[in-house]
């Protein structure tokens, strides 16, 4: 295509947006509202998912070592624990360290157990590679020698994992459904806008325009409408996320929980919204005029 023709198509599409007045405005608004919905839901759901993962990551298996175990028995146990599949990290914590943690959490009254009166066990703390593996790892650890007890929050943790799994699946379904709705709504709005120009397209054909000569300005016009429509939700979501992020993070400081950082998360959402807007806008209008081109 000649540069002059490309330039002509671009100018033509801007002119058309202007001359179509409220039709363009309606299309832009439809895109903006839909993408605002999609963007907000994605931002919320992915952060809920992130928090859920943080909770899961926080679940570790505590293996209490039998009081009778000698040092070499402990070492042998540690090796055995490290060999269990899905065990990522084994950390040793002595009874003294355990006690000082209890004192730290619950108060100095526990100080009287200090020294030989300490009723606590030495502990191996296991981190699993995947939260789902926790129960299995605990099961295997229980069968090893010199293991007094194994604890991982048992039923509570299992229940938590189940809930998280559901939240995650439902979230994914909602996001996919929302994107589909957005695609459908945007494509439909553009279809209606173009339907009003049916005769126009037929006349263009009659004076000898090729299909692509007619299609290009419509395609660019659709992409522009999608782009402008996407800018609005992109600005709103960016503003709210950036200002809300710091506030939320200061609440969450000192916990295991964190929101998804704006870089790269916000950038990805912005890119997604712009891509949906431009892509559906351009592609949708190119598709919509297809049946009018057969003259």
């Amino acid at each position, binding site marked *: 295509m*000649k540069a002059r023709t490309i330039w002509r198509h671009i100018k033509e599409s801007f002119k058309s947006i202007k001359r*179509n007045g409220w039709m363009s405005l309606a299309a832009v608004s439809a895109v903006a509202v839909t993408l605002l919905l999609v963007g907000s839901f994605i931002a919320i759901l992915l952060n809920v998912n992130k928090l859920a993962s943080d909770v899961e990551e926080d679940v570790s298996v505590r293996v209490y070592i039998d009081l009778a175990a000698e040092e070499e028995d402990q070492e042998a146990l540690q090796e055995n624990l490290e060999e269990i599949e899905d065990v990522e990290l084994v950390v040793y914590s002595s009874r003294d360290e355990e006690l000082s943690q209890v004192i730290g959490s619950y108060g100095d009254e526990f100080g009287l157990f200090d020294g030989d009166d300490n009723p606590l066990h030495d502990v191996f703390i296991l981190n699993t590679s995947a939260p789902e593996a926790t129960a299995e790892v605990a099961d295997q650890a229980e069968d090893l020698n010199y293991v007094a007890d194994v604890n991982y929050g048992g039923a509570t943790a299992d229940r938590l994992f189940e809930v998280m799994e559901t939240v995650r699946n439902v979230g994914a379904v909602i996001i996919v459904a929302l994107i589909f709705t957005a695609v459908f709504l945007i494509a439909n709005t553009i279809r209606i806008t173009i339907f009003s120009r049916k005769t126009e397209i037929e*006349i*263009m054909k009659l*004076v*000898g*325009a*090729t299909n692509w*000569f007619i299609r290009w300005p419509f395609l660019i016009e659709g992409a522009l409408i999608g782009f402008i429509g996407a800018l609005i939700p992109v600005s709103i979501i960016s503003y709210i996320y950036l200002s809300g992020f710091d506030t939320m993070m200061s609440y969450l400081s000192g916990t295991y929980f964190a929101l998804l950082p704006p870089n790269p998360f916000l950038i990805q959402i912005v890119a997604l919204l712009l891509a949906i807007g431009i892509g559906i806008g351009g592609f949708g209008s190119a598709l919509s005029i297809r049946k009018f081109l057969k*003259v």
Partner: protein
Amino acid sequence: MIEMTNVYKKYPNGITAINGLDVRIDQGDFVYVVGPSGAGKSTFIKMIYREEVPTKGTVKVGDFDLVNLKAKKVPYLRRFVGVVYQDFKLLPRLTVFENVAYAMQVVGKKPKQIQKRVLEVLELVGLKHKVRMFPNELSGGEQQRVAIARAIANMPRVLIADEPTGNLDPETAWGIMDVLEEINNQGTTIIMATHNSDIVNRVRHRVLAVENGRIARDQEEGLYEYEG
């Protein structure tokens, strides 16, 4: 140049508008297509630029075989044949200038060339002072003249006009005839359907009389020979 052989056209509603028509029109001819209302004049004309495809028979225009013409090639036929439509078919959102320019942009002409030629043809049809107006701001006759300007902008080899003087007062009608004559003198074939006996009888050209979907009379420098 234009050749129709044994052409039939039956519309989906069952009406047979063209019923075994044979005709040959040479490059540079000026042809009036006359005949009673409903005789098939418009249908005949529409088959030359492939708005309608014959049910049977062959239509050849220049190098184009219209019956077997691929959809992709149709735009090129439409540039070879300029058409003035009975209902004008102007683009409602474009100004007078832009309507004429559109037909030239389609062909890929340079903006400078377009600018010059558009003003030239608009001057020829006497509308140079209304270039910025939109079609709905023009009278029927003015729209008719814009349609003519657009049809001749690309200097087509064939110009087809379905009742180009139908909506015009006699004076403007004669103005249009002057334009068509001039284009014809430059070598363009003109095919014009008309009910205007005055014009046919005074500016003598070949007359094709269509009746019941066939050529009833084909006469060089013929007369109109119908009432009103």
